[in-house]
């Protein structure tokens, strides 16, 4: 109570620092890279995890770099595929040790095999020849590549020849997907502007969840094992947590530059242990929380 009054007085005087971090049930575990590691990120934009080797891969488009970290957050390597990566914006771990990378400078998807030092480039198109503008990607349990197409606001699943196999789109009135995640019960996609989350499972009509709280710039989505929905609000610097029916429950973090705050965050992702990873582009770091 006393602390609250002091903070209120400080706020009135314009002296209040950024408020304390709201982390709810989450505890800060580590930051990538560790502040004293000597490793520096410029403007990280995406993260992917390899659940088998328990590694984190962070995408930093400045300098075209992919950085890997072990489960303790120790920096392992920086990698630019022999200069083939100019401006990577997303990454997914594929089979046989390969990495799928979206290269924004050419709008291509690259298949990078670090061990064979081999890079293959692919232009993605629909069957009618129209262009796919890849923004996010993931590999499903059967090794199939899924890509978010910003041009149409859809998620497309590609076959082994990278031909469009299935298109997942919002219903009429949708505003286009901005993120998606693959889970055991289907493909989840966020229509940020419409404030809706879709779940697609093969052979069934999509289920649509309307979020009951408006956000300023919803950009990324995660779903925990209890079915709670985590929506990253880039401009607000928060993660809004919703129940499975889209009912707002609480909000994590907040806008700012201190530890525990976010400044233009870009992505949320759960790792192999369900730890919450938040890519914070504006603060040049990735924060990892556990419960």
């Amino acid at each position, binding site marked *: 109570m006393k602390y609250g009054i002091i903070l209120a007085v*400080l706020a009135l*005087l*314009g*002296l*209040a*620092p*950024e408020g304390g971090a709201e982390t709810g049930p989450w505890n800060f575990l580590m930051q990538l890279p560790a*502040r004293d590691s000597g490793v*520096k990120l410029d*403007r990280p*934009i995406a993260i992917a995890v390899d659940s088998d080797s328990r590694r984190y891969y962070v995408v930093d*488009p*400045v300098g075209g770099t992919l950085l890997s970290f072990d489960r303790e957050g120790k920096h392992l390597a920086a990698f630019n595929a022999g200069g083939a990566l100019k*401006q990577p*914006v997303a990454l997914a771990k594929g089979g046989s040790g390969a990495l799928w990378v979206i290269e*924004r*400078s*050419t*709008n291509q998807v690259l298949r990078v095999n670090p061990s064979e030092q081999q890079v293959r480039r692919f232009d993605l198109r629909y069957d*009618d*020849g*129209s*262009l796919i*503008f890849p*923004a996010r990607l993931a590999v499903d349990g059967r090794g199939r590549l899924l890509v978010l197409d*910003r*041009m*149409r*606001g*859809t998620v497309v699943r590609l076959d082994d020849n990278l031909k469009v196999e299935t298109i997942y*789109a*919002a219903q009429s*009135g*949708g*505003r*286009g997907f*901005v993120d998606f995640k693959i889970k055991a019960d289907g493909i989840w996609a966020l229509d940020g*502007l419409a404030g809706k989350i879709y779940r697609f499972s093969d052979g069934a009509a999509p289920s649509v969840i309307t979020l009951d709280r*408006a*956000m*300023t*710039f919803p950009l990324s989505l995660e779903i925990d094992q209890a079915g709670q929905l985590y929506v990253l609000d880039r*401009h*607000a610097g928060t993660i809004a947590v919703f129940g499975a029916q889209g009912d707002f429950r609480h909000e994590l973090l907040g806008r*700012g*530059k*201190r*530890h525990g705050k976010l*400044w*233009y965050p870009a992505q949320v992702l759960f790792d192999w242990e369900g730890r919450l990873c938040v890519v914070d*582009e*504006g*603060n*040049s*770091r990735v924060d990892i929380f556990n419960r």
Partner: protein
Amino acid sequence: MKRIAKSLLSLALAWFALMVLPAPGLASSCFECHKPGDFQGAVVHRPVAEKRCDQCHNPHVARHEGLLVKEQRELCQGCHEPLRARMEKSTFLHQPVKEGNCGGCHAPHASAVAGLLDKPEKELCFGCHDRLNKSYARPHKPFQEGRCGTCHDPHGGDDYRLLKTAGAGLCLGCHKNEEGMKQSHLGRDSRALDCLGCHHPHGGDARGLLRGVKHKPFAQGNCQTCHGKSQGADSCLGCHQGVLASFNKTHSHLQSSDGGNPCIACHNPHVGDRAGLLPANEGAGCQSCHPGTFKRRSEMLHQHPGWNKCSDCHDLHGSDWPGMVKGSAAEVCAGCHERHKSFSHPMGEKALDPRNGTPMDCMTCHDANVGTNYKYFLHGSAERGLCVQCHLSY
């Protein structure tokens, strides 16, 4: 005994004063000083007509200017309850309403104009919105006649332009020839059309008040140039292929807004007010997808001047920088504020922000995008609050 008689006499005098002398606040006593003629007009506010000055004023003393018994907003809404309820539901409020300044538009006692407006509607609206006071070769009739309230709700609404009705419904309220309308629009359901996208609601030079800049195929009547092809972005990229590279940025603005062609989220494929087939009011276009930014900005006391011209700082197709700004904050701000480099706080690699270890730039201390409640849209008070965020021992 004497004391009791004195008390009774005092009570009797007080009763006499209350019952016989004019009650303070009733017009008869007010008009002994205030000229009754100043309170007359074609339209008279009901409390004035009923000579109940005390409904709004305290004749002795008050906390509010004009001896008002309550703050203006609270006072007016006390009687005009339905208006209050409507305003509470409105997404956008007219600035005087937001400020509770009912007297900004209304005369509280009497007026020659309906609705107790302070002046005739045209004069009143253009008093603030002078930029819109233009002459057109073909003016829209309500605009020409100064009947702004035909289309706009002067208190508030769910559209940032304070339009009374969303979509085509506003226009179809007067333009009732739906069949003719359908014929002019290739048989489309006129209720589904975005009239204001192509027609300027105040006036124009062309027939039908079409906006001034026309897409070449539209001007030539070559509809099939675009409509014969895919309805996606490819129908634009077929001619504007070179534009695609401008979207190849870390933060690309290429985002389908309706599952269709992302280009038409910003560009009107037929007509516009300026080059690029864009609306004259740049911020209006941006606001449709970024309402949160505009709302937050409207709540701030200090904003960057000219904030409605988003393209001054943002690259509207894409940028490698957060917020899609045209470059680093230092570069973008220096475009206008070059001289600040000579006297500002150290910035760049030599001055790392202790909170996150990143190089300081203009936006470390200022929020030029949304603004703040502090002077110069600083993130805190320049006297101390801002500085102690980094200089903890200050």
